[in-house]
């Protein structure tokens, strides 16, 4: 049974937030929503989360010494290595439980990282950790750029978005590549639970988080989580934008488990991707260019194809797991 809002409210009222007030992320930032939902899901289900974080906005702003917004054990090591760090802790836990030095208390290891620490500099450590089959949940808050350091492009930055290391200029429409399909990369490890989620759908995210926690192996959830500042959108509008991302096929909601694909949200009618692009200030410079229509058309073709592909994958993989164990 997935958690419901009543259970969550009651849990916090009777206990506490696992991730607390006083963090210094920007007003309206979507990263703390993700951290809050993930840790709360774990706690409300009776797990004891031990958290790791990659260097990034969430890490920097929640642990300015001597303050910490974490009400659960937490470790940050460096930018590119949260997967290695948290799986080191997981190995320690297995060893210490095995040796009777630590009581088994339903400890679960959760790593948080942004897109820089996941798609780019942290990909190797993440791939290694998943391939080794550690029992941990990796939660990516994807704001599509190095927002901690001022909007540099990442492997997740979409085509045509303005960034400081690949700006939209007179000669070039900014980044020309589309973003990596990170969940497909993770799914390529096969023995894994992987999913996309969006800040517009907290209950969907929490349901996926629950599956991820239940699975005694590597799990990965990519949450589209706007940086209101560098997406150039109103502070209050993060979830509204990610809702549009889902409704335009820009960010379909789906999951993968051991070889089987499942689309978890199938809107009856889709909006054109231009509805999404025109809402985000990060595309303003693109929209002023003569070639913006072409860029958006390319994007539309891509998201259409991607959607069709997902449905096809769902169809052909149904009840045909690749693996029965990690």
């Amino acid at each position: 049974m997935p958690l419901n809002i009543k259970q969550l409210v009651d849990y916090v009222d009777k206990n506490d937030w696992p991730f607390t007030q006083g963090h210094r992320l920007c007003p309206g930032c979507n990263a703390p929503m993700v951290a809050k939902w993930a840790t709360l899901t774990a706690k409300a289900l009776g797990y004891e989360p031990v958290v790791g974080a990659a260097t990034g906005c969430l890490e920097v702003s929640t642990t300015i010494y001597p303050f910490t917004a974490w009400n659960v054990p937490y470790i940050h090591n460096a930018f590119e290595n949260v997967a290695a760090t948290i799986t080191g802790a997981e190995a320690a836990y297995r060893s210490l439980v095995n040796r009777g030095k630590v009581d088994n208390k339903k400890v679960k290891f959760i790593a948080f990282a942004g897109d820089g620490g996941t798609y780019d500099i942290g990909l190797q450590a993440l791939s290694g950790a998943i391939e080794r089959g550690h029992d941990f949940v990796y939660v990516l808050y994807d704001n599509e750029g190095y927002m901690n350091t001022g909007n540099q492009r990442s492997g997740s930055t979409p085509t045509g978005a303005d960034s400081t290391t690949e700006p939209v200029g007179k000669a070039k429409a900014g980044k020309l590549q589309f973003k990596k399909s990170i969940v497909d990369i993770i799914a390529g490890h096969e023995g894994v639970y992987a999913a996309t989620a969006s800040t517009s759908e907290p209950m969907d995210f929490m349901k996926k988080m629950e599956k991820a926690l239940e699975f005694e192996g590597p799990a990965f959830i990519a949450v589209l989580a706007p940086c209101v500042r560098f997406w150039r959108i109103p502070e209050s509008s993060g979830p509204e934008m990610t809702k549009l991302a889902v409704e335009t096929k820009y960010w379909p909601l789906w999951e993968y488990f051991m070889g089987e694909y499942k689309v978890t949200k199938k809107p009856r009618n889709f909006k054109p991707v231009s509805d999404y692009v025109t809402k985000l200030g990060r595309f303003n410079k693109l929209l002023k260019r003569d070639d913006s229509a072409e860029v958006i058309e390319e994007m539309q073709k891509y998201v259409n194809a991607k959607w069709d592909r997902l449905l096809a994958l769902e169809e052909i993989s149904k009840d045909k797991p690749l693996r029965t164990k990690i």
Partner: protein
Amino acid sequence: MPNKLAVTGAKAVAIAMKQINPDVVAAYPITPQTPIVQYYADFVADGLVDTVMVPVESEHSAMSAVVGSAAAGARTMTATAANGLALMTEIVYIAASYRLPVVMPIVNRALSGPINIHCDHSDAMLVRDSGWLQLFCEDHQEAYDMTLIATKISEKDDVLLPTMVNLDGFITSHGVDIFEPLDDGIVKDFVGKWEPKYPLLNIEKPVTLGSLDLFDYYYEHHMQQEAAMKKAYELLPEVFEEFEKISGRKYDFLDLYKMEDAEYVMVVLNSTASTAKYVVDELRDKGIKAGLLKPWVFTPFPKKEIKEALNGKKAVVVLDRAMSFGKEAPLYSLVKSALYDAEQKPKMGSYIYGLGGRDVTTHQLHDAFEDAINDKLELNEQKYLGLRD
């Protein structure tokens, strides 16, 4: 029960690790450290240890997993060499700053480039300022002993700093030599148990480790690391004494060979010291008062002991198996600095040798001594042994 074994240095280290039986070993293979990891993997596969081994995908992840594991509260070890150490260097600093008492054998190998797999000390010198203790080992016995000693000193409450145990690539790691391991039970008692103070796995007392430490605290935390290093310096003699009690083998900051009446002294690290002792004896046979000083402890650097040992000597030659391009060689500069306020300063000469595994012969060591004996030392000029010129 003396039980001598003729094995490689890598195996001697692996045996020490087996007897310590750490909770977690996370490692990545690299020549010439590989056999250590392989032997340990065998021990795990055969159930001789119940360590959880994490075969990571890079040295960077090895040290990262080590930090996660040690922070969780597990006794954790790894091992590496050269480029592997260079790759993990970022996290090597972090491990020390988090005060995690990790032990890491380093099988010393030349840093690229160009790539070379043989012995020199450029890897150890790369991380000399990282906040780890650095012990150096002449042979198999010392590599084994120092691995145990490292565990003990690192985990002292007032120290809590990680330690590297340096042994020479191939020469020690792959050469077969004789050493005497201690009984399992004696090792177990000697290393004891580690009770971590702030383990992540203490769910009742959640801690935050790895905060953003800005201008208002970072400096203070670094001062704590410096104080811990001083504490390690204070406590090392105690640990050496304890080790002597269980093994009969006496260690100190410095291995002093025929130093009491020596006039001409060679200072050198690791396996070359063996050959140098032989050369000292050859010179002694000719009536020349030669001596050898080999630091067992490089960090914390035993400045006072070195000054005391070298004050009043006629001449000192310092041999470095690493270059510090454009600056004085690392060991030489430290020894020279230690003698700054000596009452009777010896003449000094700096010699580079053995880079990238260049064979170190007795003739080369004689050449350096000859310069000392014939008053041909240049304080500020670096010379090169075994170089084609």
